[in-house]
């Protein structure tokens, strides 16, 4: 969304050439100031809201018990298969693919929010 806005603005203004491209041997990462790859980072509150929505819409969950620090198995009374199902629902919502090792660690809302927030490809 921000990238579409940026491209429409850029079409109408003249932007000076940025001098920040530096390709030394030690630091091969060019600073792409025109690239919109970095600003797709989600807002933390948005991540929290979306994660809570996913958890609340899970059929076995009582929506009134869902808070941002709820534990799936201890507080919501789900079992391990339900936890995996919630992780899969989160994968679908944020268009991610979470590897097994990381997915096994996600068993509560705050961990899920933290993982998704720190994931560069979340959208």
């Amino acid at each position, binding site marked *: 969304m921000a990238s579409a806005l940026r491209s429409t603005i850029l079409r109408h203004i003249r932007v000076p050439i940025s001098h920040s491209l530096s390709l030394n041997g030690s630091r091969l990462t060019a600073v792409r100031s025109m690239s919109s790859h970095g600003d797709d980072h989600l807002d933390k509150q948005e991540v929290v809201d979306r994660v809570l929505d996913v958890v609340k*819409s*899970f*059929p*076995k969950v009582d929506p009134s018990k869902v808070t941002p620090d709820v534990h799936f198995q201890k507080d919501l*009374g789900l079992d*391990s*298969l*339900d936890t*995996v*199902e919630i992780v*899969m*629902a989160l*994968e*679908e919502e944020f268009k991610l*693919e979470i*590897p*097994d090792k990381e*997915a096994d660690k996600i068993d509560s809302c705050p961990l899920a929010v933290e993982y998704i927030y720190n994931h560069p490809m979340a959208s």
Partner: protein
Amino acid sequence: MASTMKYVRVPPNSASLAEARQRVFEFFKTACRSIPSIMEIYTLDDVTSPSQLRSVISSEIRKNAHITNPKVIDMLLFKGTEELCNIVEHSKQRHHILGQYVLNREDRTHDIGNKDQGASDFLKSFYKSNY
């Protein structure tokens, strides 16, 4: 994609219940990740949603959750993988998917998780027979 159907072969040698359990979760994840393509192949967008299909898959897995023998679990995983492969390869047709997985889920006489605990024994055996 990490969970494609290509190398889903269940070698029949789960060493322990824990390993079989891990395999079950991997199977479940593979199935969930193929849900978008299943919905596209059989055009299920009007009839159901990915989260309902996920619930259906998890309830099918849960039907056998009481089994403790790793070899039996391997056999069930093999059958589940075979079914999933058939579905993904379009060997089945839309009415198979609808009848087996989408429609009439409430009429089945399996336990729906933690619900139905208040029902009396008469009701629970009502569908089986009247005696």
